């Protein structure tokens, strides 16, 4: 079991990496007025067949060959359902996959979101040839990081260059601080 929802997000987004996606969009949308947090992860990867889609929440199903259990999606589903929320997956082969999890914010069983910025940072740094769009919405304010606009500025400088890494880290942390202060 994961200690933070942001670790579940990293784990589920790694599936998008493995699915050969070139673009992954991650949105954390917190709406205290509605007592609701929605986390969506969508990709343009290879998608799943209807048979795979049926089995994906089964912990004893996995596509990897090193172990016969796959706990990523079951963990994430459990984290959502414990709060009274739910997890929905839709997927089309050759098009991509969309995972949407909802959480009841006031639930005592809500796992902390944790270090979501580190999750995004690690995804970008570890997959410099992929694009990520991260949106963190809190009430009516939001932070957006789109690596495509970073890439346009950087040209042939890779996203995992140490100086660029530092910038991405600061971009996330500084802008998150402002997002939280805006509340």
């Amino acid at each position, binding site marked *: 079991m994961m200690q933070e929802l942001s670790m579940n997000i990293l784990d589920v987004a790694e599936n998008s990496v*493995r699915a050969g996606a070139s673009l992954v969009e991650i949105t954390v949308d917190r709406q205290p007025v509605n007592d609701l947090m929605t986390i969506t992860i969508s990709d343009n990867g290879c998608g799943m067949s209807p048979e795979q889609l049926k089995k994906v929440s089964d912990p004893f199903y996995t596509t990897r060959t090193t172990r016969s259990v796959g706990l990523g999606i079951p*963990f994430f589903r459990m984290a959502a359902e414990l709060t009274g929320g739910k997890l929905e997956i839709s997927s089309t082969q050759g098009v991509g996959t969309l995972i949407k999890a909802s959480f009841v914010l006031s639930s005592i069983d809500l796992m902390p979101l944790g*270090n979501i910025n580190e999750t995004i940072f690690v995804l970008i740094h*570890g997959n410099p040839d992929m694009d990520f769009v991260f949106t963190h919405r809190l009430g009516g304010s939001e932070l957006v990081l789109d690596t495509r606009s970073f890439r346009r500025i950087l*040209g042939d400088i890779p996203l*995992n*260059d140490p100086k660029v890494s530092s910038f991405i880290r600061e971009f996330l942390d500084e802008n998150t601080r402002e997002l939280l202060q805006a509340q």
Partner: protein
Amino acid sequence: MKTLAELQALRDDMKAQVGVRREGQYRMRVVVGMATCGIAAGARPVLAACTEELEKRKLTDVIVAQTGCIGICQYEPVVEVFDADGSKTTYVHVTPDKVPKIFAQHIVNGSPVVEYTIGANAK
């Protein structure tokens, strides 16, 4: 607020420097296992700590990358270091506080930290 204008300035700064790294010229590869097993055991802060070492030490000839399940889940977080000659060192049960020593002793000075390796920890 951090803006893209600052990224533009950073880029112009970097372009002005000579000797920008080209693909495939890494002296060493540091690979962190980032499957469910690794993440649950704490691989994420370990990878972040590795990239911080790159930034701090300005190591442009070393790459920190990630991989899936290596197959030794009970030893996660696992970090593999591939030297220029292709030899591999497997570090097990890595925590962020072990990372600076791995970088100082192994990545920079070429001498593996034996006590953190799988050989010294296998049961």
